[in-house]
């Protein structure tokens, strides 16, 4: 079964090809075909996973050679797939969550004129994502890495008639490519300094002796730059909120559950480099912490339901990087899996709301939706509770463990700020739920909302179950199922005995989570606070948060505008006048010398060419005679 692991990416790829060329003729079957392809991939992935589990813990890494890709001199990169605990976890998340989102999209995208094309892109995305997580070679990983970026571009701009969608797509591709280019240089340095791009070779602990730690710092930071772009961390986070222009299943699959977690996967996969460096780990921790807080604050200021979730995703990814930065890799991975479930759930719920309200996304115009959309409301509340970290739910075991580790290892500041981030998470998600589903309807659309069809609700229910119950895999950071499974690849979760006891930390976290939710209920749903008036009184703070603290505007002024000016200057002044002006001057000189200014217009080229050839031959003859 393990040898057949290539089927996992291959099946969705076949789905892509079929739907690309025959999607229109297939009609609604295109969606079922695509869903089936991912489900089949999931089945193979489960088979591979079972086989891996059946083997002794130390023998669970297999490399499957497909073909030699590039080879020049000492350099080679092969298309090899790596099956180990980490990649198995990733392919399971990608294919299972992916299949559910495909299923949902059959209902959500029904009636779109480019239905088949949509599923072609979606399958292509799954293919590239699987290549990314299965790659044994860093350059092959990069193929998947850029490939998912391409699909993200295609799907954000899926409704390309809209200028906003086209702009957002381009912004996403270009912003992430800035990070990717650092990463590409990093990959090149891995080969030049460590002698190979194969993970089995460069992730051997003995590699530490090959180069001084400074080299590992450079490599780790360059790779991390790629992760910053792909996982939308500060300062390259600006593309993700705009990416919400894409259809909502895309937001769920690509911009919440899978692609944006690729950066976390990359850091966790290559954590050896970060550990040897030391400094790089601190950078990861700090970037994660700053992003977690920044994005959670910004999420509080959003009125668009999808933008709340987008900033929330950025923030949650920050938490994952915090975990990685504290060497708690399996905690980061568990949070990745749990987040994939509850955030996909929340996005799909938002999509369900939009589906039932004629594309309403403005939270201030919703209200009371739980009466007309009870299923959607129920699963969204489950997702929100999990995200807020209420005791016993999947989100709790993820986020809480990160805070416990921060406290235990004596990082009091990280714990404090992380707890603040947790509070903010409870606030923004509580605000979303209470504004959307509670109180009275505040618009016609909300009043006449209707529940979504079963094909959309079924995946929601499955994801809700996961968002609530996935914690059973992570009951204890040492003996839980996920950490023990990942331990041979990722090592044990670090522990210390500083700070207060775990019980006290849990009480604090529950006060924060439930308290935060209670506050939002009081403000937005109890009817005792006029939250619109409150917002006006707090201006300009809400606007500051709404604009993501004006980071986009700063970039526009400091990066985009000067770049445009430089480009214009080089093209219109330097190239047109200086460089070309020189050439034209020489040309005029020749024309003047020839004294045939007007004749030049017609016969010059031919005359000169002939004269030139004759001259050349004459010279030849001369040299020939003399020689």
């Amino acid at each position, binding site marked *: 079964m393990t040898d057949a692991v290539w089927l996992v990416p291959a099946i969705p790829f076949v789905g892509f090809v079929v739907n690309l060329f025959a999607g229109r003729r297939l009609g609604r079957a295109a969606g079922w075909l695509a869903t089936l392809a991912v489900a089949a991939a999931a089945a193979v992935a489960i088979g591979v996973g079972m086989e891996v589990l059946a083997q002794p813990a130390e023998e669970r890494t297999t490399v499957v050679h497909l073909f030699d890709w590039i080879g020049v001199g000492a350099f080679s990169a092969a298309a090899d797939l790596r099956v180990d605990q980490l990649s198995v976890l990733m392919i399971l998340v990608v294919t299972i969550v992916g299949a559910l989102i495909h299923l949902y999209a059959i209902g959500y995208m029904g009636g779109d004129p480019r239905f088949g094309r949509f599923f072609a892109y979606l399958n292509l995305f799954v293919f590239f994502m699987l290549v990314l997580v299965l790659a044994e070679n860093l350059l092959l990983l990069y193929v998947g890495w850029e490939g998912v970026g391409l699909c993200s571009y295609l799907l954000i701009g899926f409704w390309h008639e809209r200028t906003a969608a086209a702009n957002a797509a381009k912004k996403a591709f270009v912003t992430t490519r800035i990070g990717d280019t650092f990463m590409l240089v990093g990959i090149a340095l891995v080969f030049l300094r460590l002698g190979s791009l194969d993970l089995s070779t460069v992730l051997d602990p003995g590699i530490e002796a090959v180069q001084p730690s400074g080299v590992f710092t450079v490599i780790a930071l360059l790779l991390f730059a790629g992760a910053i772009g792909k996982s939308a961390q500060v300062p390259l986070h600006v593309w993700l909120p705009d990416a919400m222009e894409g259809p909502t299943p895309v937001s769920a699959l690509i911009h919440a559950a899978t692609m944006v977690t690729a950066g976390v996967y990359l850091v966790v996969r290559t954590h050896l480099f970060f550990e040897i460096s030391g400094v790089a780990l601190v950078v990861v921790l700090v970037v994660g912490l700053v992003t977690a807080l920044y994005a959670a604050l910004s999420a509080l200021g959003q009125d668009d339901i999808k933008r709340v979730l987008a900033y929330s995703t950025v923030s949650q990814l920050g938490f994952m990087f915090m975990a990685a930065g504290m060497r708690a890799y399996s905690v980061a991975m568990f949070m990745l899996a749990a987040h994939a479930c509850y955030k996909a759930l929340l996005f799909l719920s938002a999509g369900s709301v939009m589906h039932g309200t004629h594309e309403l996304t403005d939270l201030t115009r919703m209200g009371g939706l739980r009466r007309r959309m009870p299923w959607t409301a129920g699963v969204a509340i489950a997702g929100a509770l999990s995200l807020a970290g209420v005791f016993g739910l999947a989100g709790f075991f993820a986020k809480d463990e990160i805070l416990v580790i921060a406290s235990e290892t004596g990082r009091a500041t990280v714990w404090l700020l992380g707890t603040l981030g947790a509070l903010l998470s409870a606030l923004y998600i509580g605000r979303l739920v209470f504004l959307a589903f509670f109180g009275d309807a505040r618009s016609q659309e909300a009043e006449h909302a209707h529940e979504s069809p079963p094909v959309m609700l079924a995946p929601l229910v499955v994801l809700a179950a996961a968002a609530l119950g996935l914690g059973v895999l992570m009951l204890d950071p040492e003996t839980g199922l996920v950490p023990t499974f990942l331990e041979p690849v990722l090592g044990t979760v670090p522990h210390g005995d500083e700070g207060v006891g775990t019980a006290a930390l849990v009480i604090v976290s529950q006060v924060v989570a439930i308290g935060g939710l209670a506050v939002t209920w009081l403000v937005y749903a109890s009817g005792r606070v006029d939250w619109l008036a409150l917002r006006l009184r707090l201006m300009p703070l809400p606007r500051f948060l709404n604009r993501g603290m004006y980071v986009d505007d700063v970039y526009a002024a400091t990066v985009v505008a000067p*770049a445009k000016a430089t480009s214009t200057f080089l093209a219109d002044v330097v190239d047109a006048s200086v460089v070309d002006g020189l050439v034209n001057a020489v040309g005029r000189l020749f024309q003047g010398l020839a004294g045939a200014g007007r004749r030049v217009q017609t016969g010059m080229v031919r005359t000169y060419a002939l004269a030139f050839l004759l001259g050349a031959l004459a010279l030849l003859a001369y040299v020939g005679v003399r020689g």
Partner: protein
Amino acid sequence: MSNWLTLTTFLPLAGVVVLVAWPGIRDDAARAVALLAAVATFLMSLAMLGRFDNGVTGFQLVEEATWVDAIDLKYLLGVDGISLWMVLLTTFLMPIAILASWRVDDRVRLFMASMLVLETGMIGTFLALDLLLFFLFFEAILFPMYLIIGVWGGERRVYATVKFFLYTMFGSAFLLVATLFLYAKSGSLPGGPTFDVRELVGLDLAPITARWLFVAFFVAFAVKVPLFPLHTWLPDAHTEAPTAGSVILAAVLLKIGAYGLIRFNLSLFPEASRSFADAISVLALIGIVYGGIVALIQTDLKRLVAYSSVSHLGFVVLGAFAFTEQAMAGGVLQMVNHGLSTGALFLLVGMVYERTHTRDLGRMGGLMSVTPWLGGTFLFVALSSAGLPGLNSFVGEFLVILGTLARNVWFGAIAATGVVLAAIYLLWSYQRMAQGPVPEEHRHHRDLSLREVLVLAPVLAAILAFGVYPKLLLDRIEPTTAQVVADVEAPPVSPPPSVPLAEEAGG
């Protein structure tokens, strides 16, 4: 049969003979004759590929005959891992360019004959191993190219041809003088005076002489590449040339410059090559960044692609002068890939123009809604040009960056910025052309016709195939490029002490 190279080189002329000897030939017949000749030439070059032996590092299938004994001019053809792919690129694209010119209906016979003469000139240029013979082929290309731009070109074609002509003549003059000078010096060789490149390599030149000669050759080829600041003829020539002219110009003619640098500058003047390497690399880097930045604000689609060529060819020259196996092989690979991607871009620009009658991006929009296959194909090719991994150009660019980083970290890092710029200008042009609302006048264009699909499909297939399985090319390129690098005798490329690297990057 042992003269595969001669047959490949001159087979197009058979088509010319037919065109000339068939009085009153109808236009359709003329097109068919040209297409037939070009396809036959392609098949012949495939036969050449079949005879090619990967294991041999030097020249293969050599054909040698005395031509003009008085001046030691030899008819000398040979192929190695570099010229092999240049020839195949030429013979592969020529039938496509001819098929893409099906709608040329002014003086069809002359047009088709020019294309075929052009093809013979280009193949001969890549195969000639006698310097003077090379020069003759090199010059023979120019005349049909003038005609193609000057007769079938756009409104400002006269300006463009004169400029193209002046630039090229400027370069050719240097090339001729240097060639003759080298010949004059070659009397000291054991075999007596010669233009034979294989023998000239052994010529012992005073360093200062070698440097002057290097510069003369360099100027001639740098104009062709074109290397900054000698590039300004290219945007004008591209803008005014008809589609087939732009395709051949970008895909093959520019490669002659890079090919000349590798074949002649590096192998004839290794010491001078080493001493000029840094300066040339800097010019190449300027080209990469400058071409990319200038492309950003172009509104004429053809000018935009022209500037992107300046940027992409910078990678080739950078690779050639990094003197590492990876960079050199990557540079040659990039020559092929740029030919495919940019050739395809110009084909598509032509198809867009036939529908919209404009190249002004400001007056386009929404093509993806009206002609999704045309729009999608454009995006595919643009992504290939932007170096998306999995497609062809990525492999060459990565190898150049890798090989350059090995020699100079900063050169490699700066080159990498070209990858970001390419994404911006290509996606921005795609957006203005294909996305957004559809302007009223563009609502009723038809999507790709069968002929257009036939024109594009082979190129798209090659773009994908060489991205997924570049070994097909690399296995044949590598022995030759490794030898070229070894012959330049570059200083060892072992990594510099690594601690300074970390400090540099940290600072």
